[in-house]
């Protein structure tokens, strides 16, 4: 479904990786590993279509991933380094906005459930500025949880700032998505084995 061929990434004058090839099918987890600065985030951002490959191609269902590929974007959910939350808004408002923006319908009950899953039910009406790093990460993950209709999840360090219980819940969330025929690409520093029908590993060494 997602085909990556001869991918090359350069930042400035530095070549991060070249000749990267892999194919992701339904149910496949892509684990991207490598030291800091080896291009993990760059690879994920390339998969999102933010970064243009220096060479090579990424295609989704046979169509090149680029600015014009709106079908691909409608099957994508992305969790970046930043949590994509507005400090001025409450977790509930943030989630509602994010889902409306990407055209995912969700009732308020489902939003409440997702916040409950994130352990933030009591804080749903506080502004996000008052939340801790871990809590913000959980709001962001609740957004991913509400996007099961999105086939391909791209998660950049999803476990950052999470406590053990939240890591486990997140792992289960990704595993369930994969078991349901979804796909995911993630980077992580922690050793969190995620059960998946199929796993692909990419080791980046700069």
């Amino acid at each position: 479904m997602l085909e990556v061929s001869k991918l090359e990434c350069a930042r400035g004058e530095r070549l991060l990786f070249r000749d990267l090839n892999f194919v992701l099918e339904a149910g496949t987890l892509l684990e991207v590993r490598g030291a800091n600065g080896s291009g993990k985030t760059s690879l994920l951002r390339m998969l999102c279509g933010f970064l243009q490959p220096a060479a090579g191609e990424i295609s989704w269902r046979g169509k090149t991933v680029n600015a014009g590929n709106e079908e691909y974007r409608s099957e994508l959910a992305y969790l970046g380094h930043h949590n994509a939350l507005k400090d001025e808004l409450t977790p509930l408002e943030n989630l509602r906005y994010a889902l409306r923006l990407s055209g995912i319908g969700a009732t308020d009950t489902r939003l409440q459930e997702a916040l409950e899953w994130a352990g933030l039910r009591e804080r749903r009406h506080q502004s996000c500025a008052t939340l801790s790093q871990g809590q913000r990460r959980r709001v962001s993950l609740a957004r991913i949880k509400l996007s099961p209709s999105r086939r391909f999840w791209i998660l950049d360090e999803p476990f950052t700032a999470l406590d053990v219980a939240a890591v486990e819940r997140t792992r289960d969330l990704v595993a369930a998505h994969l078991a349901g025929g979804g796909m995911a690409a993630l980077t992580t520093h922690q050793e969190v084995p995620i059960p998946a029908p199929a796993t692909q590993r990419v080791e980046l060494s700069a």
Partner: protein
Amino acid sequence: MIMTDIRWFKYSSPQTFYPLAGTLAPWFSAAAALLAIAGLYISFFMAPTDFQQGEAYRIIFIHVPAAWMSMFLYLVMAVWAAIGLAWNTRLSSMMACAIAPTGAIMTFIALWTGALWGKPMWGAWWVWDARLTSELILLFLYLGFMFLHAAIDDPRRADRAAAVIAIVGAINVPIIYFSVKWWNTLHQGASVSLMRSPSMAATMLLGMLVMALAFWMYSIAVILMRVRCVIIERERHADWIKAPGALE
């Protein structure tokens, strides 16, 4: 097959262009020098004194070519930048980068000579004439392009961002020109024209054309030399440039 062709095109264009530019530049320099000598001779020794403006009108022999070049170079720069943006061809973006400083200098010369011509004619160094004002704005557009490019560290991102402002500027230049012109007529400002002397003598026109050609040749020569520098700077990690004698 097609993919490899595109790759070849994208990657070795600077490589093939570098020696070509090196071969062409001296020829254009020589042409510029010869045309400049001819143009100067016409401007000073063949063109008669203007009965209205006296000898001061001789400034138009550089003012008008510089103004032409400044506008034309902006257009060429915008086209190269747009090509680089649309097809991700690095050489075209490098060309745009190489053109900008020359264009800015031409704009400066047009402004400077315009002021020096305006003082004896209008009695003021600066008048808010449509042409002069547009030239001033053109200078800002050139500076914006160069400063934006310089402010972005990643050269490819810089190319693409600068291309956007070049295109936006190119669309705006005519709008700015006509709006200033309209504003100018409304305020009944100075409307003396360099070109509107009763009968432009044929020799004057010839002198201007020869000088314009000299400016052309000079611009091409200096842009080719500058693009060679840009290529070295940008490709310093490429294999071809590390080969002995590649920079000749």
